[in-house]
Every structure is written in structure tokens, then in C-alpha cells.
């Protein structure tokens, strides 16, 4: 029987990272994935990642996918695509369906990195064509270049719902509403703000009553829910929509580990019980990434490396010292990500009212998806001074720090740990380079000049839509809530390779609007609203 030192199941961020780390120690590695392409969810992730440089922050997911795949191949990893692992058997054997036959492979170690699939929520009409997973919509548009629909209702305001919602806009679809039964936006506030400022309304404490339609979705009725998620009569609201995206959480695809006989625990779905090294209760069987507990892709890459190091140590490819060093490095890296209000232990908490630094959280952000005009001024990234300066509307403790490094003149400081709120240092003079605006994965940084000429100022914002406005265009400025508040003239458009498709749009607006205007629409586009 063909034997690998390490068989990795799943070629997503965790699996590929595990394969690379293991191959570096000299292990023979086979990676098996049921898809035709490696990369797992990475190739659907067209947004810039959060985190720090070591977590590949500010790099778009699909580019991380290419990097990992290239590295794995260079290290001689066998990547078996179109290969379904149908079972894990004792003693450490996998059965694979590939090339029209069944083959058994023996493994000295196995890393299961099968990821997660989407949760569902049943309501009347949820089986109609047009109701689909948010991840499914993402697959259709980002991998296959096909719009999943035209008018979309997004159910779920977690990061998946928010990120996919924004990507639907980028793909040219219209997002009619983001709906969530919980009273608070579940995902990062910066993701919500990106949607809200384009005019997407948020309906918190609401859920879908039914999807209407004969052959496919033609309308959606939502209604308010009480704290027990029961509908409140009389609050129904109808939308014309042809698509409903379900973004109601992820479920670890842990069947293989269950099949293998691993002890399972409940962590938002059944996951194999693992120790801090990724080892399950079966000797030689490890789990990494979402299958061991839902987190971001950045964390998945690290848990993949840790599992691979554990396997390498177990099989004598590295010694205790090498293992300790590798583990410590990865462990400290993941700890940085697992801090702040979105840390795994804070998941689902509704009672956090202040940032780690003690700033009151924006209530409007949690309830409406955007920070109010008065609230925004209370955060350390928002200052008012003469001349151009960054305004950082990053108001929650999320693990991310590329802005600090992007600023070469030291205007931006992030305190202890990467989850601290960025602060703008007024003593250092902003040089209007725009790097911070382009690099921020949350698109939460703006360059504001309160007065450039009599009664007018400028706002420079990140812009990732088509068609790209041109210098001299006159359109409307939208506030954080997506409401048109004034006429805006495009005075500059910067598109640089280093900005990686994040264009910098500078608009001229009345001075009293510079702390309000956060998005721009051409006159035509604004008229269609």
C-alpha cells in the first residue's frame, strides 16, 4: 500500500499550511481534496485579510491561496485533486475515490483539515431556487464569475454575511437588506460600515418569515422578532428580491474524524477533541482549521502548521527543541489573533459595551451597521486638525495592524497587541500618501482635509467598485448610513499596483460634510436608488 509520512485531508488554508510545514521537515506528504482546485475557501476570498504581516494581512485571500499552492508544489507535496477521502480507518488508513477507482493509502500521520460547511435555517419557501448559502453565492460569483441573482436579501450579519454582502455589491448585484435575528451586528463593525455607507439597510432583531415565489424567489417577507426569536405580528415588511443568502454560521465538516472514532466535543458543531498541538484522541490523527473549531482562515493556517509540527515530532522528523521553537512561534502568532472582542471565548456575547481601552462601543454600529456622527468623534483614530490627516473609523478591538506599518511618518499607532484601537498622532504630519487607506482590510481609513478652499474640504476614501469614477465627475456624497447628503466632485483617483485594486477616490465636499461623507456615487447610480 502506498504510504505517506503525512496524509492531509483538505487543501484549504489549514491543509496546505500543514503540508508545507511538514514537507519542510522532510516528511513525504500527500494532500487530498475533493475539489478540482486546491485552496479551499481561499480562492473565494477576494477581500484583504486582517491580522498582522505574519498572518499575511492586507493580502487578498486568493493571492494567499496561490502563494501556498506554489510553495507546497515547490516542496514536493503530492496534491491529489478531485480525490474524495471517503473514510479513515484503523490503523491510520484512508480510502480515496480518485480517477474512477478506490485506493487505500497508509499514513504515518493524518491531518484532517476538511473545513466547514454552511448552517441553514428553515423558513417557508427556503427550498425555492434562489435561496442559497452565502458561501454558495460567493462561490458562484468569485470562482465562477456568475451573479447568483440581482436583488439579494442577506440573512445573517456575521462576518460571512457582511463580507459576502459587500462582494455581491462588487459583483454588480443589489443587496436589499441585511437581516439578523440577533439585536446586534455579529461581524466586524468595519465590514458592516462598508455595506451601510453604500446604502444597504440593516434589519437587526428581524428574521425571514417566508420567501415567496412559484418557481423561484420573487419576494421576501421579514418581520421583527422578540428576544425568543418569535415573530412580532404586524411588523412584516416585504421586499422584491430574487435571492436570499443564508449566512447563519458554519458547521465543522467533522464526519471523517467521527468515523475514525475520535472523541468529539461540541464547539458550535461537533469537533474532534484536540489538545493544543492539534492531536485528537487517536494517536497520529490530528485536526486543524475550521474542522477543529470555526475561526478565520488566518488562524486555520497557523493551526495547520502546528498540527504538522506535532506530526513531524511524533515521527521523528524534528526533535523536541525544534518542535518547541516552532510551536512557540506559531502559538504566539495565533494568540495575537485570538484577542479582542471577537476572540473565540467572546463569541456570541452581547454584553460587551466598552473596548479594551475603555471607549464606549458605538451603539449605532451594533444596531444599524454604522457609527453615528456624534459617536465617531469619541474614538482615538478620529481627530480634527488643519491640513490633510487620517481619520480611522476602527472602533472595535479586532486583530489587525497593517495601518501602523503603512504609515511611514508615524501618524498611526496601535498600542499593545494588534487588537488595540489605532490612534492618530497629531504631532506627526500626514503626507497624504494614501497607503493607510489602501492597506486597511476594513476600509475604515479616510484622509480628510477639512478646508482646502473656501468652505470646501476633501475626503479620500477606498473604492473597490466599477465603473471607477473619473477626475472631474460630479456625483453625490453619501454618509455612513448611505444617505446622500451633498454634491461631491471627484478631484483625484489613485489606482496603484501596490494598492492592489483598492482605488483611492478623493472628493470635494462642503467643509461641514467632511466628517460625514464616506462614500461616493455617480449621479446616475444615485438616481437609481
Amino acid at each position, binding site marked *: 500500500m502506498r504510504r505517506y509520512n503525512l496524509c492531509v485531508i483538505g487543501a484549504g488554508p489549514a491543509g496546505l499550511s500543514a503540508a508545507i510545514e511538514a514537507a519542510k521537515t522532510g516528511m513525504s506528504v500527500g494532500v487530498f481534496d475533493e475539489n478540482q482546485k486546491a485552496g479551499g475557501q481561499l480562492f473565494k476570498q477576494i477581500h484583504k485579510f486582517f491580522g498582522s504581516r505574519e498572518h499575511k494581512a492586507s493580502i487578498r485571500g486568493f493571492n494567499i491561496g496561490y502563494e501556498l499552492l506554489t510553495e507546497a508544489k515547490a516542496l514536493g507535496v503530492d496534491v491529489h485533486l478531485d480525490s474524495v477521502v471517503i473514510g479513515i480507518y484503523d490503523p491510520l488508513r484512508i480510502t480515496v475515490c480518485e480517477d474512477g477507482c478506490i485506493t487505500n493509502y497508509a499514513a504515518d500521520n493524518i491531518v484532517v483539515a476538511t473545513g466547514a460547511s454552511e448552517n441553514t435555517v*428553515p423558513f417557508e419557501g427556503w427550498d425555492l431556487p434562489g435561496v442559497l448559502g452565502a458561501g454558495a453565492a460567493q462561490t458562484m460569483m468569485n470562482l465562477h464569475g456568475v451573479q447568483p441573482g440581482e436583488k439579494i436579501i442577506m440573512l445573517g450579519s456575521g462576518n460571512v454575511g457582511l463580507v459576502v454582502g459587500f462582494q455581491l455589491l462588487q459583483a454588480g448585484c443589489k443587496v436589499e437588506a441585511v437581516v439578523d435575528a440577533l439585536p446586534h451586528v455579529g461581524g466586524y463593525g468595519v465590514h458592516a460600515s462598508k455595506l451601510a455607507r453604500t446604502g444597504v439597510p440593516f434589519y437587526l432583531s428581524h428574521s425571514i418569515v417566508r420567501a415567496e415565489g412559484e418557481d423561484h424567489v420573487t419576494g421576501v417577507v421579514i418581520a421583527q422578532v422578540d428576544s425568543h426569536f418569535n415573530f412580532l405580528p404586524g411588523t412584516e415588511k416585504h421586499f422584491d428580491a430574487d435571492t436570499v443568502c443564508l449566512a447563519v454560521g458554519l458547521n465543522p465538516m467533522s464526519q471523517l474524524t467521527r468515523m475514525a472514532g475520535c472523541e468529539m466535543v461540541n464547539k458550535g458543531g461537533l469537533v474532534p477533541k484536540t489538545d493544543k498541538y492539534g492531536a485528537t484522541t487517536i494517536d497520529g490523527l490530528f485536526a486543524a482549521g475550521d474542522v477543529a473549531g470555526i475561526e478565520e482562515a488566518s488562524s486555520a493556517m497557523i493551526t495547520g502548521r502546528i498540527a504538522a509540527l506535532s506530526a513531524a515530532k511524533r515521527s521523528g522528523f524534528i526533535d523536541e527543541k525544534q518542535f518547541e521553537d516552532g510551536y512557540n512561534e506559531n502559538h504566539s502568532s495565533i494568540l495575537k489573533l485570538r484577542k479582542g472582542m471577537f476572540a473565540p471565548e467572546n463569541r456570541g456575547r452581547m454584553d460587551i459595551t466598552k473596548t479594551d481601552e475603555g471607549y464606549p462601543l458605538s451603539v449605532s454600529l451594533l444596531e444599524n451597521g454604522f457609527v453615528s456622527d456624534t459617536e465617531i468623534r469619541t474614538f482615538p483614530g478620529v481627530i480634527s486638525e488643519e491640513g490633510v490627516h487620517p481619520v480611522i473609523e476602527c472602533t472595535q478591538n479586532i486583530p489587525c495592524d497593517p495601518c501602523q506599518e503603512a504609515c511611514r511618518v508615524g501618524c498611526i499607532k496601535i498600542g499593545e497587541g494588534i487588537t488595540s484601537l489605532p490612534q492618530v498622532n497629531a504631532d506627526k504630519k500626514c503626507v497624504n500618501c494614501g497607503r493607510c487607506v489602501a492597506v486597511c482590510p476594513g476600509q475604515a481609513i479616510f484622509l480628510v482635509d477639512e478646508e482646502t478652499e473656501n468652505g470646501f474640504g476633501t475626503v479620500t476614501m477606498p473604492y473597490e467598485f466599477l465603473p471607477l469614477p473619473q477626475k472631474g465627475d460630479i456625483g453625490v456624497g453619501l454618509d455612513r448610513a448611505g444617505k446622500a447628503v451633498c454634491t461631491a466632485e471627484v478631484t483625484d483617483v489613485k489606482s496603484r499596483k501596490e494598492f492592489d485594486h483598492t482605488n483611492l477616490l478623493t472628493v470635494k465636499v462642503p467643509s461641514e460634510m467632511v466628517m460625514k461623507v464616506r462614500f461616493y456615487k455617480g449621479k446616475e447610480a444615485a438616481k437609481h436608488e
Partner: protein
Amino acid sequence: MSEIMDRSKDIGEFIPRPDDDVIICRCEEITRGEIRKAVHMGLWTMTEVKRYLRCGMGLCQGQTCSKTVKVIIASELGIKPQELEECTARPPVRPIELGIFGNEVEKL
């Protein structure tokens, strides 16, 4: 090992709900009401409900509905979903043509 359950314990009458007609298992087209009724007939585990109603026995093998089915059964029984044991996970994880499944080849 399963928890001790006295199947004669009173879990109350079956009370119809307006959403009883909503499909839960998309493959086998089993509704919320059917699942709730099955619990009141004495089927108190994921496996028993599945075997009796076929929810989770279709082409996707419960990968879409099992979490929801679990919540429905637990709510009828008045327990937490985590207290219910999952149905056994069994190969093949994806549907595989029998001709391919029977074509075992050794690769060296």
C-alpha cells in the same frame, strides 16, 4: 453509552404549529411537523427519527438537515440539543458510483 431515558415520561401533547409544514430534510422532503410528531410517537433519538422518517437518509445523508433536526427533537423533548447523540458518521462522505466503489486499485 446512551443516557437512561424512560420512554414513558410525559413530554406533553403534540401541539400543531403554523410552521409544521416547512420542509426540514430537503432530500427526503420531511417536514418539521412530521419530525415533531415522530418524537411524540416515542422516537427520542436522532437515529430513531432518521430511521423512521428517513430524514437524513437521502442523497446528502443528513449533511444539510441534521443540525436542524437535532434542535427540533431537543425542543420537543425539552432538552438541550447537545444532549442528543448524533447519528453515526459513515462512509462514503460523498455519493460515489457503485461501479467506482467496487473498483479497488492498488497504487504504488
